[in-house]
């Protein structure tokens, strides 16, 4: 099993520009330290129709209302997440969709870097196995370190879970096993576990050995791999 940078094509060049957008990095930094309600706030605002800040503050009283924490650091972070999310929402529909996808990847990478050796977390990588044709689509995020490598596919919402991605992840895990290597594979979805489980229940593609990290469990990415 070996890893390789994905080939550059027109799509990847455009997407690299999205990934490099400072707004993506700013959102990811904020959301890496966010609490569950703040992450749902970001999801709602970036999916939203309205870009009126007070509308969203009123919708999240546990963050901005009388019951909110009196911890100034948390309050400032909630407000920063709101403003950054509004900046994403203010983009055109196509751009914001790309930004949201890139954000989940960047957030995943940042959380994984908290427990990985420097340089081990990589983006847009292909995984090659002897005698197996390479997948066309690269893996969004990989952790390339012994004793077990990891590969993640990142989705903004539960609806992004589909047969193709489940097959790709499970195939990679199985091919690694054929080579007596360990490859942990998982989906990272910036959506509720309940919604993801509904989506997964409808899939016949193999996913029993594929991990699922959801909006509630993102912090687990920063914990030592099992």
């Amino acid at each position, binding site marked *: 099993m070996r890893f390789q940078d994905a080939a550059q094509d027109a799509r990847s060049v455009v997407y690299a520009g999205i990934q490099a957008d400072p707004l993506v990095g700013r959102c990811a930094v904020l959301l890496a330290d966010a609490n*569950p*309600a703040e992450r749902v706030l970001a*999801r*709602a605002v970036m999916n939203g129709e309205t870009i009126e800040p007070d509308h969203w503050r009123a*919708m999240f*009283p546990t963050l901005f209302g009388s*019951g909110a924490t009196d911890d100034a650091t948390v309050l400032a972070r909630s407000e920063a997440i709101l403003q950054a999310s509004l900046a994403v929402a203010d983009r055109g529909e196509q751009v914001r969709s790309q930004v949201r996808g890139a954000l989940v990847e960047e957030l995943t990478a940042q959380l994984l870097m908290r427990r990985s050796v420097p340089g081990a977390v990589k983006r847009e990588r292909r995984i090659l196995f002897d005698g197996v044709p390479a997948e066309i689509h690269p893996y969004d995020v990989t952790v390339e370190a012994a004793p077990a490598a990891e590969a993640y596919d990142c989705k903004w*919402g539960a609806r992004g879970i589909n047969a193709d991605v489940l097959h790709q992840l499970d195939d990679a895990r199985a091919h690694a096993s054929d080579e007596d290597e360990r490859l942990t594979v998982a989906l990272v979805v910036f959506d509720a576990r309940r*919604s993801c489980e509904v*989506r997964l229940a409808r899939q016949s593609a193999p996913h029993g050995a594929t991990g699922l990290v959801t909006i509630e469990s993102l912090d687990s990415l920063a914990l030592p791999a099992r």
Partner: protein
Amino acid sequence: MAGETFQELIDRALDAYAELAELGETVEDEWSYVNDLADAWRARFDHVVEHRGHAPAPDEASEATDRAIDEIGRIEDPHRAIDWLSTFPQVVLIAMGERP
């Protein structure tokens, strides 16, 4: 709506949610996913009603729910409606002090 119970708040939310699901159902390939998803979240709301439906809801939770209902009422794109079939319940549950 100030002075309501959690049951009343949830009833209003579920009425709006049903309309959102109707919009999402217009994506024919996702019809059964939309219905399974809506059923799963309705079950979560039912659980809240069972445990504290008669308790008074904080005014801020009612206001938050009004805002969330207003937000989904603006949606015209059925694909975005499907996104919100997952997001809306999370927002309302958090406003009620519940975990999604």
